[in-house]
């Protein structure tokens, strides 16, 4: 049994589920249509999460992690067991705090965005929000891959419900279906991966000496034997399994080519977008990679794929964000791009950099979406940035909070995004110097910094600066405390959250201020094989990824920081040069056909629709013909034989009693004769 605060950890996920049930059953009678129940539940979750974080880090009591089986639903006879279990280690405690914090703020913000705007269906909204948060929190605290998979799917279901919240219009249901189907396509590979993990290791636990990452490491060292399939060696088979699980990650985290669902998901209410992008749905993918990092760290091929997909997605999505005209669309592409960075960091061995960027991104992206939500309220639900302008003076709280988030997103010193993005690129550089593939991923990530700076400040300038370009922008709708409060909290956090891991400063001055690094590298984590030090060992011995420097560590650090900051400033400066002034021009129109390609997302949707419709329907037609012809044909042929023979045989049933009597008599006589012959009567 877990001790102290760890005994209450299951409540972190249980509380939102309770609020889900409450809002579902009695939402109509609750204050604010269930919002208060949700806020209370999330406050409880946040408090327990913070206590768990403090407890893990040793600020309260002894530092240590907790792993326990909560409910075992299948007991294997001579094979593995299936159970729900809870793992509270450094990574999951941090993520629990992030998720419950963002979810709480989103609940509060929803009071302004949904209740004050007089939306209908609010009990359903708050029920789904609670369900979403609860599923994500349970996913985060899962101690095995199967439980993680189950809640991963529930997260997908919840996002489907929320994206399609306004189901009466034509596009939200379609966007919801698209999000569901695209992520499901990736999850299909994940499911096979889960089965493969069970078949290979006989366990799916994440941590400890019985966890599958550690077993994989032992198998590669020849200390443990596992089942491999298709005649593959252990290393190759682990790569295959890792890539299968990665399918689910790429679907959820919207990595190329599964990114197409995410911009469409903007059809959902804006607070939901904030939740999806910052803390729940999309974060689930990269969190899973971090969760089973020990497993990926033994496979250099899987790491290279993660890094390259991440770097490519970072650049690819950033270019699409350049030309979008709706504020939420720009943010959607920035999310895809930023998750690309996190994947890049994880793939190049920068585990801490990845987690750090996941943390800061959760804060500033939630902030930007809530800021955009505030702007959308003010603009009477018009999202076109060309109709905005000049909102700076009308809504200062939103403006300064949004600016803080934008500076963080663009990666400008000293906002949180700078520290994390700089560390991502630094880790990618030093680990990539020995490998052209990783270096290529780093180069794409670096180039994306410039585009990020540009589209971020294009968005800020078009929305808040210049002269108002429409009547609603001249006289915007005011927002209340429930909108401003979350914005203020997140605005401050986005500015200062980088302080949890000031690695460059530490390296320059020697002051011990890399708290996140120390936290994730704690002894208790390494003892359970989920610590950074352990991962670094694995990367070195198994994947052959080692840092190397250009002229020493400090010059490389400075070079990397200067490059990323310089590019970010250049991008922001270019945007400033092009879009400042009272009435900015539509510069992207001048790009001509390039703009068309970017605006249409490189025609990714078109080819995927073609794949789904033309190719998919073609395959379905062939399969249908096979089904109808061969499968059904066989069954029908067999049944037609019995039908035919039955039709003939029933003719002996004449309905005339005398015939039956004759048959009975004849049969009896024949039987007697037969007995007589065999019995030797004659």
């Amino acid at each position, binding site marked *: 049994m877990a001790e102290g605060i760890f005994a209450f950890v299951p409540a972190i996920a249980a509380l939102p589920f309770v609020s889900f049930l409450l809002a579902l059953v009695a939402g109509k009678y609750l204050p604010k249509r269930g919002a208060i129940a949700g806020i209370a539940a999330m406050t409880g979750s946040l408090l327990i999460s913070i206590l768990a974080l403090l407890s893990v880090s040793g600020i309260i009591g002894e530092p240590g992690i907790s792993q326990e089986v909560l409910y075992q639903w299948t007991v294997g006879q001579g094979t593995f067991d299936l159970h729900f279990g809870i793992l509270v280690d450094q990574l999951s405690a941090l993520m629990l705090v992030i998720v419950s914090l963002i979810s709480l703020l989103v609940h509060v913000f929803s009071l302004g965005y949904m209740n004050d705007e007089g939306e209908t269906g609010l009990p359903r909204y708050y029920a789904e929000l609670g369900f979403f948060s609860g599923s994500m929190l349970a996913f985060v605290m899962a101690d095995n891959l199967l439980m993680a998979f189950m809640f991963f799917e529930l997260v997908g279901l919840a996002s489907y419900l929320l994206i399609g919240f306004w189901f009466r219009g034509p596009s939200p249901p379609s966007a919801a279906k698209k999000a569901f189907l695209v992520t499901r396509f990736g999850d299909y590979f994940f499911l096979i991966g889960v089965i493969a993990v069970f078949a290979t290791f006989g366990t799916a636990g994440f941590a400890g000496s019985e966890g599958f990452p550690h077993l994989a490491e032992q198998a590669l060292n020849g200390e443990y034997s596992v089942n491999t399939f298709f005649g593959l060696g252990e290393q190759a088979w682990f790569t295959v399994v890792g890539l299968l699980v990665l399918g689910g990650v790429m679907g959820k985290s919207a990595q190329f080519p599964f990114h197409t669902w995410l911009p469409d998901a903007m059809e959902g209410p804006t607070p939901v977008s904030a939740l999806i992008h910052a803390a729940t749905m999309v974060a689930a993918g990269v969190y899973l990679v971090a969760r089973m990092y020990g497993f990926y760290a033994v496979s250099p091929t899987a790491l290279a794929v993660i890094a390259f997909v991440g770097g490519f997605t970072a650049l690819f999505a950033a270019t699409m964000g350049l030309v979008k005209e709706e504020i939420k669309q720009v943010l959607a592409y920035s999310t895809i791009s930023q998750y690309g960075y996190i994947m890049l960091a994880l793939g190049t061995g920068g585990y801490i950099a990845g987690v750090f960027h996941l943390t800061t991104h959760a804060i500033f992206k939630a902030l930007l979406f809530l800021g955009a939500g505030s702007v959308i309220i003010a603009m009477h639900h018009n999202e076109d940035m060309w109709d905005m302008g000049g909102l700076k003076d009308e809504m200062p709280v939103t403006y300064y909070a949004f600016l803080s988030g934008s500076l963080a997103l663009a990666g400008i010193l000293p906002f949180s995004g700078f520290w994390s993005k700089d560390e991502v690129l630094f880790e990618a550089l030093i680990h990539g110097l020995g490998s052209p593939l990783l270096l290529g991923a780093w180069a794409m990530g670096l180039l994306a910094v410039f585009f990020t700076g540009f589209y971020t400040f294009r968005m800020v300038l078009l929305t808040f600066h210049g002269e108002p370009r429409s009547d609603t922008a001249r006289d915007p709708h005011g927002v209340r405390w429930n909108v401003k409060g979350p914005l203020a909290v997140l605005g401050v956090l986005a500015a200062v959250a980088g302080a949890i891991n000031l690695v460059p400063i530490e390296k320059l001055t020697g002051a011990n201020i890399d708290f996140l690094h120390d936290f994730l590298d704690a002894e208790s984590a390494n003892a359970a094989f989920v610590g950074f030090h352990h991962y670094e060992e694995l990367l070195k011995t198994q994947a052959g990824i080692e840092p190397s420097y250009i002229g020493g560590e400090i010059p490389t650090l400075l070079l990397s920081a200067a490059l990323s900051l310089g590019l970010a400033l250049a991008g922001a400066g270019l945007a400033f040069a092009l879009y400042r002034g009272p009435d900015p021009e539509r510069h992207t129109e001048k790009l001509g056909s390039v703009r068309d390609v970017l605006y249409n997302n490189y025609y990714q949707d078109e080819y995927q629709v073609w794949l789904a419709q033309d190719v998919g329907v073609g395959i379905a037609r062939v399969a249908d013909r096979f089904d109808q012809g061969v499968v059904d044909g066989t069954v029908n042929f067999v049944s037609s034989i019995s039908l035919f023979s039955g039709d003939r045989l029933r003719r002996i049933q004449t309905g005339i*009693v*005398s015939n039956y*009597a004759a048959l009975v008599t004849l049969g009896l006589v024949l039987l007697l004769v037969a007995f007589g012959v065999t019995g030797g009567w004659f």
Partner: protein
Amino acid sequence: MPVPVEYYLVLSAAVFCTGLFGILTRRNALFFLMSVELMLNAANINLVAFSFMHGNLTGQVFSLFTMALAAAEVAVGIGIILVLYRNFEDVDVTKATTLRW
């Protein structure tokens, strides 16, 4: 000097065959019923004959039960014949073929 059991058996076989012949050739349901009675009583004769031969009364008690059963059977049979007549205006068993396919 009692009559040997073979005589009874021959009598019984003759009665049985008469009944069987009636069932196979007649079309009137009432003749059916009578023929069935004949066959049943042929069996009774056998029971009594063997009981007599073995000096054991069980067979005779059985034949009493059989007679009671036969009476019940006739009651049911006549009921069926009445219904048959009501539905087909006839007691010809070859007419009532509507329950087949």
